[in-house]
């Protein structure tokens, strides 16, 4: 028997599919044929089936059901809890870029107006510099500084939301490395499913693309860490054991991501063991 979108054909006899568009969408999304014994559909079969009247009708109905199926697939793809988190993280990281760029520019502008203050202000934190800048500048520069402050406020609120949502969507990964970094790892992998499919060695260097390709192309040393460097356990570790901590942490993160994807709830026993193991690597003891 040959199964086609419009019906089934067996020994030259065709029985058309009679369900509505919704049922037909479910049908074509679940169809999978054995290619070695399959012959492709022909529109004439659908006509002889009584499914449609002519070629134009065949294409019209096929298009309608394919558009409906594609819409459903897209909707299902976005229904995962990680889909929105991914956009939130990327927005957050882009806001950081924008805030840094604008702050640099505003500071340069301010230095042109007040050459004497330049070095002094360089030492203060960016956030205080911008506030001073807003208070002391007339016209557009003051407004720009005000906008930067607004952006920074929104950024802080967004970071909190990202962190909270990551705790919910990926509880195990978040418990090991913090919601924000966990969400960044997920965003870099392209989603929770792709992250759960990554080997630990890839998670270890996620976000270190330039260094990784430099390593593959030339003989420069391999990167020890990518995004996971942002976690205190990695960047606080002494330089000589940082690579080890990163490797052990990445190994546990790979397991945590799989727990998050397949189970979706925290696994306390795993977390306790993992934390101990990572702490041990941080002390310089190898298990």
């Amino acid at each position: 028997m040959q199964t086609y979108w419009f019906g089934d054909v067996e020994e030259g006899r065709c029985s058309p599919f009679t369900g509505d568009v919704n049922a037909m969408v479910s049908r074509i999304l679940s169809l999978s044929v054995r290619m070695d014994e399959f012959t492709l559909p022909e529109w004439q079969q659908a006509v002889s089936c009584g499914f449609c009247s002519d070629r134009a009708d065949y294409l019209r109905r096929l298009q309608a059901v394919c558009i409906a199926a594609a819409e459903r697939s897209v909707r299902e793809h976005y229904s995962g809890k990680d889909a929105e988190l991914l956009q939130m993280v990327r927005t957050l990281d882009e806001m950081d870029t924008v805030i840094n760029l604008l702050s640099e520019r505003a500071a340069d502008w301010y230095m042109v107006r007040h050459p004497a203050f330049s070095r002094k202000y360089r030492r203060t934190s960016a956030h205080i510099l911008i506030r001073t800048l807003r208070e002391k500048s007339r016209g557009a520069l003051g407004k720009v500084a005000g906008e930067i402050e607004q952006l920074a406020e929104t950024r802080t609120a967004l970071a909190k939301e990202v962190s909270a949502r990551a705790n919910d969507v990926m509880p195990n990964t978040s418990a090991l490395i913090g919601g924000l970094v966990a969400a960044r790892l997920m965003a870099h992998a392209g989603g929770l499913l792709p992250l759960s499919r990554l080997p630990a060695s890839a998670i270890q260097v996620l976000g270190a693309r330039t260094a990784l390709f430099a390593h593959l192309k030339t003989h420069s040393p391999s990167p020890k860490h990518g995004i996971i460097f942002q976690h205190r356990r990695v960047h606080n570790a002494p330089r000589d054991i940082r690579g080890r901590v990163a490797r052990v942490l990445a190994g546990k993160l790979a397991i945590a991501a799989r727990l998050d994807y397949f189970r979706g709830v925290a696994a306390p026993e795993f977390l306790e063991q993992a934390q101990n193991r990572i702490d041990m690597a941080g002390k310089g003891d190898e298990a």
Partner: protein
Amino acid sequence: MNWIGDVLVSRGEGGVYNERMLGGARIWEPHRSKLAALYHVGKGVELEPSLRVLYLGAANGTTVSHVADYTEVVYAVEFAPRPMQDLIEVARRRRNIIPIMADATRPETYASLIETVDLVYQDVAQPDQAAIAIRNGVFLKPGGYLILMLKTRSVDVRKDPAIIFDETIAVLKEAGFIVQENVWLAPYHQDHAAIVCTKPAKPGA
């Protein structure tokens, strides 16, 4: 193909992606579309109103919309949801684009939707591009054309693009395709090559 002077155009409803118009026709930019680039370097397969096309890696439907202007029907396969949203919108405005959200490495999931086609056009960012083309060769009628837009950077960034080009051609020949044309798309697209093949009139011959 439709040329107005040295400008490649296609005739259909404009405004798909704010493309520029010329004499009521849609300008088909070689810098934006690899297929347009192929025609600009003087190669490619003449698109005709009777053609049925399977388009793998349809993306946002930009090039798809131009192909659809020339041909009878385009089966447009795309895997990623974000570009698929745009592709659906393009398909809604044209009666001859059939959007299919599927993985081109798994033709068994969409084979029951697609009839035999005259042309398979492939533009996918995957490492195993030759394998995908060969697997989708089942949709091609004997004597039909395959246009493979080879993204050498997606195959292996470490390898020399020229070597990947030669290897891909060898694999296609091995699978029985007859290579008609192979050309780099410079200066329009870097590290991209086009391979035009035909499927033998009799399988295995």
